[in-house]
């Protein structure tokens, strides 16, 4: 049976959300970036700003030089999350299979076999867009195709506005004349190799046989051929199917290399992670820290936790150990991410020895008390002093 996948894409999502709130931002270059930080980078930008040469990840000061009348807004993740949630909420009635992106205004809706309920997929797509415009004041692009890949290419093609329908079976012809860099799955190294071989358009690659392509791309050749022919069986993954884990991030406004500053941040993250774990009634068996340096290099270190725990007092020394493993260079650090995964339900086994058991209960009581206070009076009501 042919599948029908709708790809909803709100172009420049963060800007679109902001524009919804402030009409003065329409028709002028806007970038989202944490202004005030010593060295901010562009998080998202409007089409006008894109035309002026501004790109994601560019230094804000460079962007300001490129474009004089730039409106700069600070990132508001909560706002985007809310808008994303609203978008998702609208689509929920049409299908159980909806895959949202991470606060980026992307949504795949699998409407295969729902036409007797909601009418043809095209109508559903129109309806979704209309609703978004009316109720959310967002104007998404949409594309309809037989798989996620083609739907995504189609919506890329019409960006920043419009819609595109690729009939089932037309995938190959649709993709053939397009430049290869439009196809998701073709990564930068692939692109470089294709360019070297003067292969710039999809049809130039698809006419080669796989054996020839395999000479350059080895095992990846089949994948590339498949992708460029528009074959994609990947299912639309509904929300909530990833293994549970707790991820917390901190970006330093000004990059730092001070061990104290980083330990303080890790402590705050551990507190939040612990709280989140406890509210889920789970404990973690592994803690890892990702450190992103100023120069873009990244280092990830992790250690296992035995017995698994959700107690801040146990987690913190471990986190500090991981931090010391992760941050070893003398370059400044821009971003820290703390991940607690391999979540399990708390073990019933208590510590065997008296002394350990005592500490265990003490720590647990302390954490419970802090949680209790925070629940009642807010997160800031109680805190931990630096030692």
């Amino acid at each position, binding site marked *: 049976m042919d599948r029908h996948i709708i790809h909803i894409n709100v172009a420049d999502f963060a800007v679109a959300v902001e524009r919804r709130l402030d009409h003065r931002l329409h028709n002028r270059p806007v970038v989202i970036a944490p202004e005030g930080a010593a060295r901010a980078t562009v998080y998202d930008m409007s089409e006008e700003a894109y035309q002026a040469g501004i790109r994601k990840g560019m230094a804000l000061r460079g962007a300001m030089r490129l474009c004089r009348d730039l409106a700069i807004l600070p990132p508001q993740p909560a706002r985007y999350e809310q808008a994303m949630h609203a978008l998702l909420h609208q689509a929920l009635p049409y299908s159980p299979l909806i895959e949202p992106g991470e606060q980026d205004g992307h949504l795949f809706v699998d409407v295969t076999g729902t036409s007797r309920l909601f009418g043809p997929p095209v109508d559903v797509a129109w309806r979704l867009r209309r609703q978004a415009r009316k109720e959310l004041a967002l104007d998404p692009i949409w594309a309809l195709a037989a798989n996620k890949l083609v739907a995504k290419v189609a919506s890329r093609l019409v960006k920043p506005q419009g819609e595109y329908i690729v009939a089932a079976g037309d995938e190959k012809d649709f993709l053939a004349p397009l430049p290869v860099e439009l196809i998701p799955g073709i990564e930068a190294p692939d692109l470089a190799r294709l360019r070297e*071989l003067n292969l710039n358009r999809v049809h*130039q690659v698809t006419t080669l046989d796989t054996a020839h392509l395999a*000479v350059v791309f080895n095992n990846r050749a089949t994948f590339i051929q498949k992708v460029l022919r528009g074959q994609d069986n990947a299912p639309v993954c509904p929300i909530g199917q990833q293994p549970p884990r707790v991820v917390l991030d901190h970006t330093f406004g000004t990059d730092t290399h001070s061990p104290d500053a980083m330990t303080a941040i890790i402590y705050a993250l551990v507190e939040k992670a612990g709280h989140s774990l406890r509210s889920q009634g789970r404990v973690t068996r592994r803690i890892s820290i990702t450190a992103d340096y100023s120069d873009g290099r990244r280092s990830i270190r992790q250690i296992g936790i035995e017995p698994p725990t959700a107690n801040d007092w146990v987690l913190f020394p471990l986190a500090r150990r991981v931090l010391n493993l992760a941050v070893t260079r003398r370059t400044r650090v821009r971003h820290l991410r703390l991940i607690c995964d391999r979540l399990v339900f708390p073990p019933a086994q208590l510590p065997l020895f008296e002394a350990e058991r005592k500490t265990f209960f003490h720590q647990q009581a302390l954490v419970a008390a802090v949680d209790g206070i925070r629940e009642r009076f807010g997160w800031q009501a109680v805190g931990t002093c630096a030692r």
Partner: protein
Amino acid sequence: MIPLTVRSHYSLMWGTASIRDLCRTARQLGYERLALTDTDNLYGMWPFLDACRQEGLTPIIGAEVTDPHRRCRAICLVADNAGYAGLCRLLTQRHMDHAFDLAVCLPAHAKGLIVLTSDAGLLERWHRAGVCVAAAMPRSPLAPIHPLRQKARALNIPLTATPGSFFLTPSDHCLHRLLRAIALNTTLERLPAEQTAPANAWLADPQVYAERFAACPEALAHTESLAECITFNGPQFGLVMPPWQDREGESASAVLRRAAYDGARQRYGHGLPEPVVDRLEHELRIIDQMHFSAYFLIVRDIVRRSPRTCGRGSGAASLVAYSLGITNVCPVKHNLYFGRFLNPGRKDPPDIDVDFAWDERDAVLHSVLDQFGEQAAMVSSHILFQPRMAVRETAKVFGLTDAEIGRITERLPWFWRVQDGDGNFLADLKNRPETRALDFIHPWPEILRLAQQVIGTPRYLSAHPGGVVITPGPIQAYAPVQRSVKGVPIIQWEKDAAETAGLVKIDLLGNRSLAVIRDAIANVHANGVHFDETHWEPEEDLPTQESLAQGRTMGCFYIESPATRLLQQKSGVGDFEHLVIHSSIIRPAANEFIQEYIRRLQGGAWDPIHPLLADVLDETYGIMVYQEDVSRAAMALAGFDDAEADGLRKVMSKKDRAHRLQDYRRRFTEGARRKGVTDAQIEAVWAMMMSFSGYSFCKPHSASYARVSFQAAYLKVHFPAAFMAAVISNQGGFYSTFAYVSEARRLGVTITPPDVRHSQVRWTADQKNIRVGLMAVKGLATDTAQRIIDQRPNGLFGTPDDFFNRVRPDAAEARALIQCGALDGMAPALSRAQLLWALAQWQAKRPPVRDALPLFSDVQPLAPPELPHDDPRERLRREFRVLGFLCDRHPMVLFRDDAQRAGAIPAAALGRQVGRRIRFAGWLITGKVVHTKRGDPMEFLTFEDDTGIVETTFFPEAYDRFCHLLDRGLPYLLGGKVEQNWGAATLTVSMVRPL
């Protein structure tokens, strides 16, 4: 109280204080005697002795000697001459002997040394070995039951107070920590405490020390009495000459006389002219009188090791040197003045500088070092933190990334020195137009504040570019010797200190142009043309003179810079005598004199500033051109004696000249007034002298170089392809390969692209073609290139696969070769994309397959697929990326349409547009920033298109507006007015736009 453990910034990356500041502070604190005990070295001994003399302090020489393998150290103070030699030997051993053990080695060298240690074990051991040793209590008094005090008491050894210092004031501690963090490659926060000096290790005043040691007054008293027994205040060597021994036992002066006459006969024929004989006799007499005979003979022996050398510097004025083959310009014919090199009044040792082809120099140097063994070493260079290095290293301590640091340091002008600014780094930087586009956000203000204080601190030692010292006995009796990173033995002093010490050095330097001339002649020979060098007189060749007069000298030694080429054009003369003047007059501060010189040269009327100067400056149109003109003018006009005049000349080239010049100026003014010179004339002459500051040549030096310039110019005129190939192969010229390739093309030479079947590693040439060498392929390793050459005798490379199999390049190398077209000739049927595909196939096949043997052994390799054709523009772009130039055309040809649309004229048409405003599209090839009299920066940039070169001027206003736009190796559209000066047309730019 006398501070006996004081470290300056020569305790590398530990101490912070410069010698001068240290001595000044010590005097201000009320000390009368001061010891300098840097860690494992005597780097700062001569500056210290000098500074002590100036401040009226009594110096104590010493060093802290550490053990590289154990945690023990000793302060060694020199009590007498024997102690000095012992300390030098000990320090040499410390640096040269890998198994150095301080406890064992020290006693052997301890005669004449006073040794301070705070290790009870060593105290006893050395005391028993007969060393004059004292117990040292650093920082604060030790408890009476401390093992050191007990041991001292038991052995009846004096107890001394030796609070060590690493910096001058408490606030310098942060600077010290910065240096430690730089040295340990870490950040300030992570700096381990045991790797830094305590926060109280500053040079306190005597009162503070007295209070600190109040509990132990006998230690203070012992310290005083210990210092009293030190009588040594610096070594006295006199002039130290290299030794020379004749096998037959003949004296050096007799051998020199015979050798000089033999050589002169070879140069001038058998009947020596009378002036030559007179001059030889005069020189030989003075050489003998000053005991320089051995020195000349040694230099002769060294020069003989290479067939092509160029003796330069003031030594080129010597007829003896010319006769011995050390120099190549006849001092009689060119009127070179011997007195400047050697005269009986001269106290400082003169030296002879010799250039060797750059790639032969190291071999010569090593043969000299091998021959003299322990008696020879190179002079060292103390590498100090320069502004750029200081900023970079400090920023790294603050955890900034290379990219962030580069953004700032790339914009620092290359000539930038601390003294250019007014003392505040940040404010100074912010005011510069180059850094306008930059933000100095936190932590940059802090970084710059600290970096400013680090500037001038020594970082490490390296070998001087060519200075070799040879001594009669082992050199370590004179100075401590250590090994440079490259493994060459070096003395611990840099050249000025070595000169103060009286060590006569020989400079053996590398010179690319000698190799260029050598290779060009080899290319000529390879093409079957006979070229006889023995009777080669390039100075007399008219076409060469003609081309010099037109400034067509790109690629020619020493006269290829835009400024010199313009000067040649403006002067319109190309003979040897004028070239000697020109290579000397081109100096940063001499612009107005150059203008005046050209005016006079072109027939403008002139009078000498003062009749007294008429004789002195006649030959150079009344303008001071050579270094010695300064001393000669001072003698003629102000009645300076030889030594005084020579002193003035030397001060001009020193870095700290400003202060010392004032005194000379006063004496000059007084002397000249006495001779009835008016104040205006004095002012004019002094101004002309000042144009020499920091940069000047003597006539013999210029003449030696002009000779090499002439040889190069001759080869360029008569064998352009052979010459340009040699210029590019030897690299390191004033211009990029790109610019030389364009120049070759303008000379009518065809550039044949690199080809793996024909190219050599170096660039080669026949009559009208240059074949690009494999060295031009960016990313191609030297040994891969050599493998390509080595594989050729085994048969022509038939297919790409055959080539890959035999040469086995790595992927990046093969890619570079394909993209620059070096494989095109081998497989003309394949496009470059197909070649890259073939490379991928070869790579895929190469590693052994995991499933062992293939099932079918006769698996045929696939034929390359049909791939889209190479896009011509893209192909050129890749070629340019690999080679840095295009073989078949100038890249500006690709922009011709854009340029025409913008109304640009070609470079060749510039001369016909004088006085008009025009537009020109060109490629930036080189540039130079200078400062106007008012201190504003401006820039001279050289652009070219396929028709020629255009010299442009960016006056301060234009520089201010456009400097941040300009980058090397890119096309620009320029607008401005064509100006002419003595026949040379230049463009004064008022508009720039990237094309």
